[in-house]
């Protein structure tokens, strides 16, 4: 049913529709409203789940892991420093190939302390072995949350649903929440084949020596690659069930043959979609909205870049001392393509800086004036810095 809902409340309701057995979480801005929403649904008897309010994000991830290993559908959510504190467990969850879903309400990582949105937190754990899906709006956040459980359970991989903190989590907008029977049909009860069960005792998380570790890593890597078609198929199935797709692996918006493209992740793609509607038709620009960052849809990206001469990669995070994170990956993936586009890397919107509609023409101008392969923080105000730091 279509309702005007705050993003966090919608995500909480979407989680409830998935009937998790155990939810464990620790509050952190801007994730709090999600967990508060779930807590209220449990208190009101709408949700039948064990809600474990833990003493840290480290334990939130651990409790969710224990619950999932014991065969329950498990969920947690966090942001920023919480994701950092969880990071050891996040690697562990993925390495153990235990399915679960985590909402990352994306937020900057301190210091300096910032409670506002960027995507440094999820980017910092990109190598943990989780599937990472980025949402452009709250409808995608709802649909992706539900899809995430199915993807996780089909692949035995954990899924992180990345939702821009405040920009999406605290925005009220019309959202279509699917009916319970639609979700029940899409997401049947789950049985974890390796669950901890005294009737069939197994040892989970054993010591693996050099004779086996490489093979474990190889199979984990391949499991992620094999998740690519699963992510696409689940989105198609969701579209069949609800009439809505959530962006597959990536989505190309705008003229297919545009020589200029902008690749971005998360809510800024929503803003740019609207801005491009008014963009002069004599300067065709298309948007590549990257939804799956892990596994990285290399083939889909190469296909989306056919005919592209200038590719702008905009990200809300950076790797200090290198520059762009996504930009460098994109460059590497396109390196094997004949007539590969010139890649221009930009970061913007760090620590909650607003990304106005003017950012798009600014990026186009900067890319056309700049050198390929360069990385720039597009919205830095150098005048605020002492001369030696500029």
């Amino acid at each position, binding site marked *: 049913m279509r309702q005007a809902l705050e993003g966090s409340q919608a995500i909480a309701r979407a989680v409830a529709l998935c009937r998790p057995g155990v939810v*464990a979480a620790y509050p952190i801005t801007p994730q709090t409203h999600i967990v508060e929403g779930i807590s209220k649904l449990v208190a009101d008897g709408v949700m039948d789940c064990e809600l474990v309010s*833990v003493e840290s994000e480290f334990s939130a991830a*651990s409790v969710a892991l*224990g619950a999932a290993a014991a065969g329950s559908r498990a969920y947690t959510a966090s942001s920023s420093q919480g994701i950092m504190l969880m990071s050891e467990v996040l690697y562990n969850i993925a390495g153990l190939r235990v399915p679960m879903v985590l909402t990352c309400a994306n937020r900057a990582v301190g210091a300096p302390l910032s409670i506002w949105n960027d995507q440094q937190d999820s980017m910092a754990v990109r190598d943990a072995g989780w599937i990472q899906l980025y949402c452009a709006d709250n409808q995608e956040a709802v649909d992706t949350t539900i899809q995430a459980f199915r993807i996780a359970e089909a692949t035995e991989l954990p899924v992180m649903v990345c939702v821009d903190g405040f920009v999406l989590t605290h925005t009220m907008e019309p959202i279509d929440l699917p009916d319970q029977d639609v979700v029940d049909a899409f997401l049947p009860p789950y049985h974890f084949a390796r669950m901890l069960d005294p009737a069939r005792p197994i040892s989970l998380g054993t010591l693996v020596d050099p004779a086996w570790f490489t093979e474990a890593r190889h199979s984990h890597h391949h499991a992620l690659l094999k998740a690519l078609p699963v992510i696409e198929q689940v989105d198609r199935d969701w579209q069949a069930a609800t009439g809505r797709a959530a962006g597959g692996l990536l989505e190309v918006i705008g003229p297919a043959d545009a020589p200029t493209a902008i690749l971005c992740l998360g809510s800024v793609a929503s803003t740019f979609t609207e801005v491009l509607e008014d963009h002069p038709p004599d300067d065709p620009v298309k948007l590549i909205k990257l939804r799956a960052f892990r596994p990285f849809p290399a083939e889909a990206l190469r296909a989306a870049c056919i005919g592209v001469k200038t590719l702008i990669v905009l990200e809300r995070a950076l790797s200090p001392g290198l520059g762009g994170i996504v930009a460098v990956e994109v460059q590497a993936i396109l390196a094997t393509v004949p007539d590969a586009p010139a890649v221009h890397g930009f970061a913007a919107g760090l620590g909650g800086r607003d990304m106005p509609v003017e950012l798009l023409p600014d990026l186009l101008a900067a890319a056309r004036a700049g050198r390929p392969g360069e990385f720039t923080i597009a919205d830095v105000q150098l005048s605020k810095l002492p001369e030696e730091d500029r």
Partner: protein
Amino acid sequence: MPPELDQTALDDLRRRQPRFRGLEAGHRACQGCGEALAARLVMESIGPDVVVTNATGCLEVFTTPWPQSAWRVPWMHSLFENSAAIASGVEAALKHQGRDGTKVVALGGDGGTFDIGFQALSGMLERTHDILYVCFDNEAYMNTGIQRSSSTPHAAATTTSPSGKARMGKRHLKKDLLSIIAAHHIPYAASASVAYPADLRRKVRHAIGIKGPTFLLVHSPCPLGWAHDAARTVEIARLAVQTGLFPLIEMERSEVVGVMPIRDPRPVTDYLSLQGRFRHLFTEGDPRALEEREHLQALADHTIAKFGLRGAGPDPLDSDGADTVRRGGNSA
């Protein structure tokens, strides 16, 4: 699995065992490992209907070298500091699935319990999960090669609290974990020792029968880390009790409800002198050695007085006969 050993045969074998052994023989623990002994005793008392979580440490490493495992019960290791939190999740899942009958036991060493896993443990106790947490206390980080923990006794030498001209081993006191645990007002917390297997079993069975969080601290000598004769593990563990250095007590809701009495407390030197980790306390002519021995004796005396350990009756003999059995080794 060899073809002749089908599931029925395995089930049959399992059924015909005289005692259920959750932790099977054939693992890779050191000779005389107190933790291996303690873990076997604990698992025997719990039975097969259990899910075990295990912190990183010796027990995890020596029981599960992939692709082998010594565990006959569902067992999970995640990280060093989250055994209690993993167990919390398992318990929540079992509860949600209506599998409440299955017990959940969290295992950890003193490093994973007193130190790095302490916060997760405190959270587990505060949230009153139905879990028995068992800490195998060998008083240092043995898995990484004998580094001091907050459970290491005062004056003990480890690789990070060595003795030397300026130091006499660990400068700080052993953390009184049991009091901190009891301050969570949980229904049952107790200390036990591998030297008193019948007492240990009784405590495990009592704890596992309680609905809610329970805690057992099991003193488990480490021949490697304590530098003692591997054949004297049980004897040394018993001396720790008989000197008053490791009191065996039971607490309910933060009140002491039972102690194992000591009729004739032994001098702490009887315990210390058998272990290389206290060797520097016996250096001839070093006034610091005498001072530290007296310090440790004072600590033991204080513990005996505090818990009223001086019993009127004879010292309890363990009914399993561990008191009288001594096998192999130099002292046989």
